[in-house]
Each structure stands twice: as structure tokens, then as C-alpha cells.
């Protein structure tokens, strides 16, 4: 978790914030579909969707970070995360999927950008794009059940 990753990243936007996931963790992207609410689940778990017979939990990152997203999401990014010794697929809700970018060590910093909504415990590093900063997410930490954030 402490190493700043390098290589190719999928970037996406939630509100005005840019986020990125390492491509090795991303299995597919899709449009939002019917989400089934999970009773008694923490607020950031929006529900589950059926992806070709697999039940995948869908997460709302803003709620994970402690604020409410405005408007409807359009996309789901399906990523793989490790919980204990189990590998699970999770969906992350996003407004738009932007690019695949290459980030090297020079583009990356460990500290989160000032003004970002994300807590540093969920962040692997911050990359510099042409016109903006992008928060590289630690998907394992996002999925880990530490209750709600803040």
C-alpha cells in the first residue's frame, strides 16, 4: 500500500474530482443498470447488480468519503479487490470515464492534493494530468469493511 504504483491507469470523474484505478485491477466498464438495494448495508454500498450471473456489490465513493453526490451516475467501473484472502469484484459508480493514461514516478506524489474529497487512507498517490490532479485509489482499502468513513 505504501508504494506508489506506476503504469497505465483508467481515469474517471465523479462530480469535479478525477480518480484513477490501475488498469490491472479494472475488469470492465458498463452503463449503470438496475441496482438492487442491500438491506442494512452501510450507506456507501448502493446495492448489487447482476453482471453475467455474478452478483457484484456497487459502491458510492462520495458516500465512502463522507459527502453526498449530486445527480444520477451514468457508469459503473468493475474492479477487482482483495478482502482478506478473497478476491471480490466491486462496481464503482462514476459520472464519466475519461481516459487511459500512463503515469510514471515523476508524475506521482504520495500526498493527496489539497481540496480533494478523498481521504488519504483510500489513496495510493496523486498523479498530475495536463490540466488537473488525479487521485489514484487503493481499491482494497475502499472495499475493506471499516464502516463508514469520518
Amino acid at each position, binding site marked *: 500500500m505504501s508504494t506508489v504504483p506506476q503504469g497505465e491507469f483508467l481515469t474517471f470523474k465523479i462530480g469535479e474530482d478525477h480518480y484513477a484505478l490501475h488498469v490491472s485491477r479494472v475488469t470492465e466498464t458498463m452503463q449503470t443498470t438496475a441496482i438492487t*438495494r442491500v438491506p442494512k448495508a452501510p450507506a456507501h*454500498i448502493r446495492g448489487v*447488480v447482476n453482471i453475467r450471473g455474478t*452478483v457484484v*456489490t456497487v459502491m458510492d465513493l462520495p458516500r465512502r468519503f463522507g459527502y453526498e453526490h449530486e445527480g444520477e451516475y451514468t457508469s459503473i467501473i468493475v474492479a477487482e479487490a482483495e478482502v482478506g484472502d478473497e478476491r471480490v469484484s466491486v462496481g464503482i459508480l462514476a459520472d464519466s470515464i475519461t481516459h487511459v493514461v500512463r503515469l510514471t514516478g515523476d508524475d506521482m506524489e504520495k500526498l493527496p492534493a489539497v481540496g480533494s474529497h478523498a481521504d488519504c487512507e483510500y489513496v495510493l498517490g496523486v498523479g498530475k494530468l495536463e490540466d488537473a490532479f488525479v487521485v489514484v485509489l487503493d481499491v482494497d482499502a475502499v*472495499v475493506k469493511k471499516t464502516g463508514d468513513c469520518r
Partner: protein
Amino acid sequence: MNDAAHAVFYDEATELLDALERDLMHLENEPEDADTIHNAFRSLHTIKGAAGVVGFPEMSRFSHGLETLFDRMRTGEQPVTRDTIDLALAASDYLRDLLVEGPEAEETETGAALRARLEEVSGPPAGAAGGRHDAVDQGTTEGDAAGSPVADNSSAAGPTVGADGNKSLGRAATYRVRFKPQPSLLTRGADPLRLIGELRELGDCLVFPVVSAVPDLTELNPEHCHLGWTIVITTHVDENELRDVFIFVEDYSDLEIELLDDGQSEDENADYKRIGEILYERGDLDDHEVRQILAEREPFGAVAANRGLVTKGSVESALEEQNLVRKLREGRREALASNTTRVPNHKLDDLVNLVGELVTLQARLSQSTADDDLRDVGGIAENLELLTSRLRESTMSIRLVPLADTFSSFHRLVRDLSRELGKEIHLTTSGGDTELDKNVIGLLRDPLMHIVRNAVDHGIEQPDERRANDKPVRGEIHIEAEPAGADVLIRVTDDGRGLDSERIHARAVERGLIPPGAHPSRQELYGLIFQPGFSTTTTATDVSGRGVGMDVVKKNVENLSGGVEIDSEVSVGTTVTLRIPLTLAIIDSLLVEIGEERYVVNLSYVDECFILREDPLAGRKATVASRNTGEVLPFVDLRSVLDIPDRGPEIRNAIVVGDDDHKAALVVDRIVGQYQSVIKNLDATLRDIDEVSGSTILGNGRVAFILDVVKILRSIAVTA
């Protein structure tokens, strides 16, 4: 002979050896039972014949010797005693080893020793099979079955030496290295730690210091090396390479390297040597001492340590060795365990008939669509639905196997453990014909074994303690299974000392599991036993209790969507109940609607459904009467259980659900209908949610959750 034939032989021989073992257990209690002796003889005869046909020559030869023993028992020439049963059990273990080894297996030292004992007891094998043993002295006296326990065990389970005999590449062998430097070693500039470090690079090591030679502080010369080491190493290199590590110090130290496990032998119960044997072999104890300790009928290691014959460290180290080798063998057994199921013919016939009907129906459907005649399609769909559900049931029933085999494997476990611990325990089982999914049974074995071990080790008291408490000297353990709706209940009951709630309480406080002032109920206290790292015994024995245990049992059972409960009364006994779902795959269910979502309720819990004309919530009544039986039931508004906002429609529905303990009417918005749910287990992100036990995918592609009726009922029973 091809691999398929070997696989079949493996399965059959395993079953026959299981049956033989069962018979032997039975004979121990009823030595006079002629039928059982006949059965055992027949099993052996079949094994011998089949081994010969399939081409396992050593197996065939060896079983002939054992068969002779049973032949003599059959004719009454040889009495059935504990010792002959011990011998026969050891021999059947050896047969299992040979079976695993394969057709090329050759006689090991173990085998030779056993054969010698068999011939001693029953005379040399006559005739056909014994060609190579003709030189054996024919005049050996018979009937001297009462060998000393040490002699028995060391010959029965002695090491299989001959390291390179048939060791194939890629299999790691386990050695014991005893390294005792002379005191002057350090002055020669050698560093024993470096040598151990080198060993570590060759394989997985367990290292135990031997401190018995360390003198008192006043006499201690700090420049001398007083320590020795026993290292148990699992490695791919051979003995010579291990020896090479010590090449420069060999002249200044005692070095013994012994093969413990050649990476091949594999035993049904993964039994390794007893503690006494290990200590004896290592030279920590002599023969006389071993006998004396055995006479005490207490856990061997504990007695040896208490008497100061060996240090606690030696016992610990011997225990570690025992565990390591056991683990290795267990692993291999799992890898070899056959992945086949025996299916009764009638089940296959049913399946074939159903597939026949399916083909006919499919032809009908093709015909209707080809003719563009859609009038019949509704009927075909209806038929197809019926057929699918019968096909499903029939297919699932093939995977159901009775629990009897699993149960009977515990007889040997209980026998061996109780002897080791010096206890007298009688194991009975019932409900062995209860069927469970084969995969479920496979996953249940370990948790059940743990529970039974606990009962033997911690539950049943020592004979004198029982006598002092006016209990029968012989302890009873009973394992029973019974179907309960969509579940199977498996209970393990002992008449031992019961759980000591005060000790559990103290321990829980000590571990910080509950605050010091808390007064949890008895059930809540028992629940704490399932917490990781909880164990009230302060000393670890080799039987159970290393701080892992009941938490693993609980985890395994919950992975099967089941549950565990404990009930206990001091000095009366303990009952552990496992609730296991019949199958993990598909359930008949009721689809209901609450708010905007649909949920699934396992149909086997549902007694009746009815419409609620008046909203019981409005009247603040806590109960509602059943339409069928008039029974007054508490009702549960699922909207509040599932945190669904709003009140829902005016007219709602009630489903009466329940098991033996609890019953209630669940209030839902609407009942959609019956549905066959293919169960999708929840992943780690959702597993903590008590109200749902799984999910399924509906016809429209959406996900619906399966409500965990048992947990919901229990939660309302607690709050009520």
C-alpha cells in the same frame, strides 16, 4: 492395467478397508461376533483378489497374511483380543499406505515387521501367495499376542528407512536432524547458528533446542557450547546433502539424520507416531521408562514431563514433530481423495427417464414453432417447468450421500484418542442414513472432527474423576443427524463435565471480550467460545487446544450457510448442534415484494400465507392469528426489519414461517409466487449482513436477496 482401473480399485479398496476398520471397531466391543469376523474376512479376501487382478503384488501378498489371521479367528483357533485387533488395525493402515503408493509399492520395514508379527500370531501364510517367504521358520509359536505396547507400536509404525528406495522427484521428504556439538565446538571457530541457517535454506525447518546438557550457572563455562538442536526439516534434497551442511563440524559433534516421512506414505487418519515413540526414538527416554509411563494412562507427554524424565521442551518438540508429519500426510490424503460418487442405479434410471421426456418435449416445441402453431406453446411451457423441477431434484439427489461413512470414521478417532488419554469412551451414532450434499459432507468433516476431539479431550473426564462423581466410568459420546426442513441437524453429545461458565466468563474478561462488570447470559457466554483465540485450557495437548478451534469450526459451518449452537450443563454434559443446509445449489422459494424490491424466502420454512385485511400495526396489536390453525403468532414487519421507509400498501400479506423453536408471521407487501432460486453466495463485502443469507438472479436479470428466516426469527425472539 490402465489408470481408470486403478481409480476404481482405489475407490473399492478404500471402501473395503473402511468396512474392515468398522468391523474391527465392532469386534473390540463384541469379540465373539462371528458375523463380523466373517465380514472382515470377506473384505480382506476381496482386497487380496482385486489387488492381484489389478496388479498390486505387495498388497495382494500382504493381505493374504492378514486374511490368514482372520481365517484362524473364524475357525476359533485364534481368539480375538485387543492386541490382535491392534495388529489388524496397524496392518490395515499399512494396506492403505500400499494402496496410495501404487502398483510398484515394495515391502517397507513397517510391512516386514507387521508381516513378522502376523506370522508369529497365525503362522506363516500357506500356499500360493507366499512364495518369497518360504524361508521363514515354520516353527514359530502362535498365540503370543501379548507383546509389549512399545514393541507393538514401534514395529507397527516404525520409520520407513531406505531413503532413496522409491523416492520420486518433486516430493519433499521430512527428516529429523539431531545435532549435538561437543562443548569445544565454539573454540574451533564454528558457529552452530550458521549451520542451522544453512539448513533453513534447504527447506522448511522446525528447530528445537535441547537444553538438557546445560549445567548450573556456577559450573557453566561460557566458552563451551552446551546446547544441542533437534531440527525437523521438510526438503527436496537428500540425506547426504543435509549431512554436507555439517561436514566441517561432524568430527566435533554427534549428528544423527533420520527419515521421518518419505513424502509418499499416506495414512487414512494421517496418524503419525505416538509421542512416546518419538521420544523413545530420539533417545530421550528408554524402553523401561516408556512402559512405566504407559502404565499411567495419562497423556504421555504430560506424564513424561511431570516425572522429570524429559523436559517440557522435549515434549513440545516431539509434539511439533507429530503435528508436522500429520499435517503433511493429511495434505497428501486430500490430494489423493477420489473425486467420485457412487450412485444407486435407480437414481440414474430416473435421470435417464427425465432426459427422455425432455427430448420428446423439445421435439414437440420444434414442431409447434415450425408449424407456426403457437396454441400449444403455453402447454409446453407448463410441461417444461414441471420437467425442469423434476430434473433438478433428480440431479441434486445424485449428489446426496448418507452421513454414515463420515460418522463411522469417528470410531477409530475416538478409540485412538481415548486410549492415548487413558479414558474409556463409547461412541454411538444414529441417523447415519440422513443424506447431505457430497460437497457439504466434505467440508463438514473437519469441523465435526474438531468437535468430537474436543468432546474426547475436554468433555469426558478421566475415569477416577468420573468414579468420584458417581458417573459410569465409561464416558458416552453420541453423534446423531436428523433432517429438519431444508436443513440437517447434526448433534454431538457427551456426558462429560460440561462447560464451566465461570471459567469462560473469567477467560472472556481476561481476553477483553467482555467488560469486567458484564453479566452475559449462559448462551451468550457459550457464544464466546467461538471467538478466535479463545480457549480455557491453559496447557496445549496434542489432541486439541492450541487456541485455534471452535472459531474455525464456526467459520467453516457459516461458509456452508449453516450455524453452530452449544448447550451444556455442568457435570451432565455438552451438546454441540450444527445446522447445515441440505444443498448449496438450488432451493424452492417464495418470491415476495417489499417496497421496490423483491426478496426470496426459502419455501421449506413457510407454513401458510394469507392476506391481512386490517393492518395489525395500526391496532398496535403484537400478534396475529393463523388462518389455518388459529394459533396466535407474533408478527414481524419486514419493512422495519429491512429498514425500508414508508408504510406500504393498505392491504398486505402475511407469511407464516418457522422452525421447531420459533414461529412468526412475516408481513410483506405482496406475494409474487413460487420461484426456484439458484443460490449465489454473498461475497466478503456483504457477508456481515445478518438478515440475508444469499442472493439469486430473477427472470428479469435483477438480483434478489434471500432472507435468512432463521436469523430473523431468532433476532425477534431475543428482542421480544
